[in-house]
């Protein structure tokens, strides 16, 4: 018995030794093991704006893509050099990707590029901003006229019977763009309908994005000047942040009603505090999913819906508080 115990102890010691070696020599996790091959490779190209909104759109598109065994790449990110949208479109074409989601506009060069790409057999879906004149397969975004109506209704409620006011709409793209015109049309028609005798001046302006800090400079200049509008409408997330920050910096909070864009926590927080009067919320997840689904439909059936509308809503202080509370509860 004693001998068996001694032999057992020695054997256990040896086993422990071997086990220790094996345990300590587990191979490094192979990164390639967690990946899987995909059927197609789509790219998402934005208009140079790396905002939180587009990041959510991309994450949603990526998740939807993986569900269809497709890899969606945020094209141009992670490169040591920044490329413009059109350059990225060209590179995507040269890289022979399987599908392109692009934040376009009515720029002729962009339209021409899209046409070339489509002609080479690569489907293109425009997101948020359309290039209607191009051969793109589908557009995913909001109805800009409806957006204008929504803004108009908000302006009416803000004026609260006041007959004179100045509204400044900052265009996301170029001033005079079809989208901007539709937005302005929606606002004006709503005001004419709701307040037929009022004298509300609705102006439009655009920011020349010659540098990455052009927006901040624009809003800083705006709030420094004396010709401040009564209501300021920003149509992009970065512009919204720059606008309310400038208002705070120049102590103009309350003197201008700022209607922002996007529902990030930061923006909602400012809405809740009253720095922003309201913010336009567009469902980014829905946008991402719809873009991928449009490309998948094209591959599955050879065609797809030319227009995929996204839902939107204006969020006031009360709703912003609710949303922030919900997020805290969920966390």
């Amino acid at each position, binding site marked *: 018995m004693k001998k068996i115990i001694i032999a057992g102890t020695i054997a256990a010691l040896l086993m422990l030794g071997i086990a220790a070696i094996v345990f300590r020599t587990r191979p490094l996790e192979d990164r390639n093991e967690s990946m*899987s091959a*995909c059927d*197609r490779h789509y790219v998402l190209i934005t208009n140079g704006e790396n905002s939180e909104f587009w990041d959510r759109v991309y994450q949603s598109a990526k998740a939807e893509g993986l569900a269809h065994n497709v890899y969606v790449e945020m094209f141009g990110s992670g490169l040591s050099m920044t490329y413009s949208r059109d350059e990225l479109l060209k590179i995507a074409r040269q890289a022979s990707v399987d599908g392109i989601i692009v934040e376009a506009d009515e720029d002729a060069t962009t339209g021409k590029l899209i046409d070339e790409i489509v002609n080479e057999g690569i489907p293109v879906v425009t997101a948020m901003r359309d290039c209607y004149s191009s051969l793109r397969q589908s557009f995913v975004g909001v109805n800009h006229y409806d957006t204008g109506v929504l803004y108009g209704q908000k302006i009416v409620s803000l004026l609260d019977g006041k007959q004179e006011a100045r509204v400044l709409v900052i265009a996301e793209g170029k001033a005079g763009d079809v989208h901007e015109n539709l937005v302005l049309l929606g606002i004006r028609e709503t005001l004419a309908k709701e307040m037929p005798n009022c004298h509300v001046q609705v102006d439009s302006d655009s920011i020349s994005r010659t540098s990455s800090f052009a927006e901040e400079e624009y809003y800083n200049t705006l709030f420094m000047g004396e010709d401040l509008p009564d209501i300021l409408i920003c149509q992009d997330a970065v512009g919204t942040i720059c606008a309310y920050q400038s208002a705070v910096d120049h102590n103009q909070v309350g003197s201008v009603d700022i209607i922002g864009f996007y529902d990030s926590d930061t923006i909602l927080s400012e809405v809740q505090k009253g720095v922003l009067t309201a913010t336009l919320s567009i469902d980014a997840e829905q946008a991402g999913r719809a873009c991928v689904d449009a490309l998948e439909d094209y591959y599955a059936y050879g065609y797809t819906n030319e227009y995929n509308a996204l839902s939107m809503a204006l969020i006031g202080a009360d709703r912003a508080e609710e949303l922030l509370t919900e997020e805290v509860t969920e966390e």
Partner: protein
Amino acid sequence: MKKLRSMSLQKKITSNVVGALLIVLAVNIVMMRVLSSINLKIEEVYTGNVRLNELDDTLGSLESNLETYVRTKSSDAMESYFRDEQALRDLLGGLNGQAVDDPELIAEKNIRSLSETYLDLTAQIIQAKRGRNVQKYAELAEEASALGNTIHVYIDSLNNERFQVNSATFGQLIGRWRAQEGTLQFVLLAVMVAALLVVIFMTSLIIKPLKDLASAANEVAAGNLEQEALPVRTRDEIGIVTEAFNQMLESIRRYIRQIRENLLREQELRERELLMESHLKDARLKYLQAQIDPHFLFNTLNAAAQLAMMEGAEKTEELLDNTAAFFRYNVRRNDKDTTLRDEVGLVDNFIFISKVRFGDTFVFEKNIDESVLNIPVPSMMLQPLIENSFKYGIRDLVRQGRIELSVSRRDGWAEISVWDNGSGMTEERIAAVLSGQWESASDDRDLPVSNGVGIWNVMERLRLYFDGKSTFEINSDGPGTGTEILIRIPLRTEEE
């Protein structure tokens, strides 16, 4: 287990050592493989970067050669371009070309696709250059240059990304290497201890029977034969020796038992013989005592001698004196030492009595060296020999019998010879008498007197008295040739 027990000692020790060495060897091999795998991984870490750098360099070289060719249409530049193109295609073959769920591999795919597009463009440029289509190759060259730059950007970006990841992996590997070092040292130590324990354990198993055997052998050497047989557990050399030891011990015990039994039996026999002899002597004594009271006989013989003297019968007186003297000697000296002189005197008495009885039928002569008469001898030594000469030698002779007694000194010995010219003895009879198998009849009634002491008795007493240094010979040339009894006694005994 059975096989292990039947293994030879050499095989056991060899397998023990080989087993321990194999354990250590196995652990060393595992350790070396572990370290080798980490080394390989460390080597692999930056392989991707090296490959991308190579790709970047090759692309740069290709661009340079293309530019030279477009400018100069040089054959050398053309040749170098094609060499680079092939090299670039080979390198591109190592990049991922599939859509996969991995940003790095997607970047590889982009580089590969862009490079393939670039190579198509360069091929078109060369074609246009050959066709002298200046406008086309100028446009294509511009496009190719932009695309080449893009590819460089993609390669640089991926290289940076990979370098960051690889740096993290490298740090992880170095950390693991250090952790592994400690573990391996501990494991090696543990395995060495385990191997040592195995060797000690196995050796003790092999040596234990040998220790038991040595202990048992010590016990036997100390005289303790009564111990249990050692257990034989193995069939090796130790097992065989143990078994032989057990058998040897059992044999020794058996022999000792047999010797003890034999001694007891012999002792018993001797005691019985002594008892019988004692009884016999006792019986004889009682018999003689029953026959006559010797003192009464001496007194009677003395009274008769005085009467014969008063009556003037001198011969009768002398006879009675001699007879009385003979019996007195017998009674007094039968169990005591005496001298040769007294023994010769007794022989004179016996001869006188025998002369009266048998007259001149025999002649007695003696030749005595007086210088040796004082040596001590056992009593009743000579007279039985003279009586024997009468009884078996000359009694039945037709011619006159002759008995000669001589006592002489020779070479440090006293020689006593009793010779007769009687019937002699055969060699068989001499041998029988000397071995004690032949006894004379002690109750011969024809003899004048007899003390009942035979030749063998005299011979034995001489041997005991002189501690085996005396000799006793019976010489005869056969029947009718007479007999001589020759006794040699060492004179040294006398001097001592």
